[in-house]
């Protein structure tokens, strides 16, 4: 059974229909990448899954149970952790405090959270020395590392990553995707990316979203093979045939 099963999801912002019937599945143990241009509805899809945005219609099944319409505080307790666009690190708290708060969905003693946060630095050695630094003092790459570490503290069964590579230097993007490859051993990941090449490099399956609709789904090599898609989203050179 799929870990996440989305059927005919429709999300409206006022008059605007951001998602017009999106269906996708994520199987346990997979990394699934959602590709698409700006405004295609990638972030909206993740926001609907984590409960930040209420769907107008459609179903979201997590582990077979409907979760559409539940609040974010409930959904993260069920085991879906959302690392949103823009990192959203609490600027006035330290790196370690930010990471520790990632465990707020579980019943864990502060001392336990502290130990787990320290252990998290093994996966993210680059931010270990900033443990006591306030959030606002960090660079974009460091913030993204903290954001992913914080998301993992929830011990999620499904991790939602929204554009982790956005605005980062190529070398940092590579370090980040190495970590994502590490994460996939233990956690199922739904990854949203504009950087198709990186996004598909770690994926088992990919979907392409276009103006609120899934236009294509397939294994990474199948997506690369589709000339029109390669041209439009993956930076290929083939001509788009109408």
């Amino acid at each position, binding site marked *: 059974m799929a870990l996440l099963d989305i059927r005919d999801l429709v999300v409206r912002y006022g008059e605007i229909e951001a998602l017009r019937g999106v269906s996708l599945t994520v199987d346990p143990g997979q990394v699934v990448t959602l590709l698409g241009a700006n405004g295609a509805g990638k972030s909206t899809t993740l926001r609907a899954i*984590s409960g*930040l945005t209420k769907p107008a219609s459609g179903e979201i099944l997590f582990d077979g149970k409907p979760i559409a319409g539940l*609040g*974010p*505080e409930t959904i*993260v*307790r069920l085991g879906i*952790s*959302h690392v*949103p666009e823009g990192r*959203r690190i*609490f*600027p*006035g*708290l330290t790196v370690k*405090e930010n990471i*520790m*708060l*990632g465990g*707020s*969905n*579980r019943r864990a003693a*502060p001392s336990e*959270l502290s130990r787990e946060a320290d252990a998290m630095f093994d996966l993210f050695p680059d931010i270990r020395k900033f443990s006591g630094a*306030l959030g*606002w003092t960090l660079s974009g790459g460091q913030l993204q590392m903290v954001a992913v570490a*914080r998301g993992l503290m*929830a011990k999620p069964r499904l991790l939602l990553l929204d554009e982790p590579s956005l605005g980062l230097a190529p070398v940092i993007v590579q370090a980040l995707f190495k970590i994502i490859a590490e994460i996939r051993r233990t956690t199922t990941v739904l990854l949203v990316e504009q950087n198709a090449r990186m996004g598909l490099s770690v994926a088992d399956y990919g979907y392409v979203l276009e103006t609120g609709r899934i236009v294509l789904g397939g294994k990474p090599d199948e997506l690369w093979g589709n000339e029109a898609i390669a041209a439009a989203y993956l930076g290929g050179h083939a001509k788009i045939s109408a």
Partner: protein
Amino acid sequence: MDLVLQLLFTGIGIGAVYALVALGFVLIFRATNVVNFAQGEFSMVAAYLMVVFSVDLGWPYWLSFLLSLAGMALLGVIFNLGVYYPLRHRSFLPVIIATIGASILMANSVLAIYGPQPQVLQGWFDTPGIQLGPVYLDSQYLLIIAVTIALVIFNYWFFEHTMLGKKLQATSQDKEMASLLGISVSTMIMLTFIYSAVLGGLAGILVAPVLFVSIQMGSTIALKAFAATIIGGFGDVTGAIIGGLALGVIETFGAAYISVPYKDGFAFLVLILFLVFRPQGIFGERVAEKA
């Protein structure tokens, strides 16, 4: 010199009251992005609760004190559920208007029960004070200062060294992100209202024996406390405390050396000077971090 020390003591004592109310303003503002214009009425209601328990019912002072604070915690819950919660998804304006409405409701409810004549509340101690060298230390002012110091320490410990304090900070910095981590935002805001109501109530109970217990005491204290938050740097906890103390000292010295009738005017003169020359307040830069 003796007079200076004496005035400094009195000024810090009255400033501590402003600081407590200012702290309540800041905590609610940080959690909800709304200025609670009923913050001063929390002080007034608590002082009247003391009158009910201690004077009218004749219960022991310490018991009345605890019951009044418990009453304020309850008022914090009711205020949150009745005034803030239904409007939480609206813009800040309806919420601010609702807090003004709540303050009018509280003042007039008390007026309906007690009438316009001020009530008298005894201080905690029987001894009026002690002479320390040239300075006479009024016992009530000593109590006010001691409680304020204890609360500032508690406040620091609570927000810097407990997980709950960190969750409250996270909520005030980014509510949506806090909810994504599983922090119950509505519970955090409820706790903030309870804490602020108790802080405001504590200020009212402590200052009541120095002033009279009256319907107007809330708005007088709130205006000074609000000025204190702007002087300190709006939204800054340290700023609220420093601003409150500074305002108390300034108005006490102003009253002694310049003019007693214009005592209240000095606070607002300082406020205007700050608004013109340093609108971000003493700790203003640090507020920008919140963005």
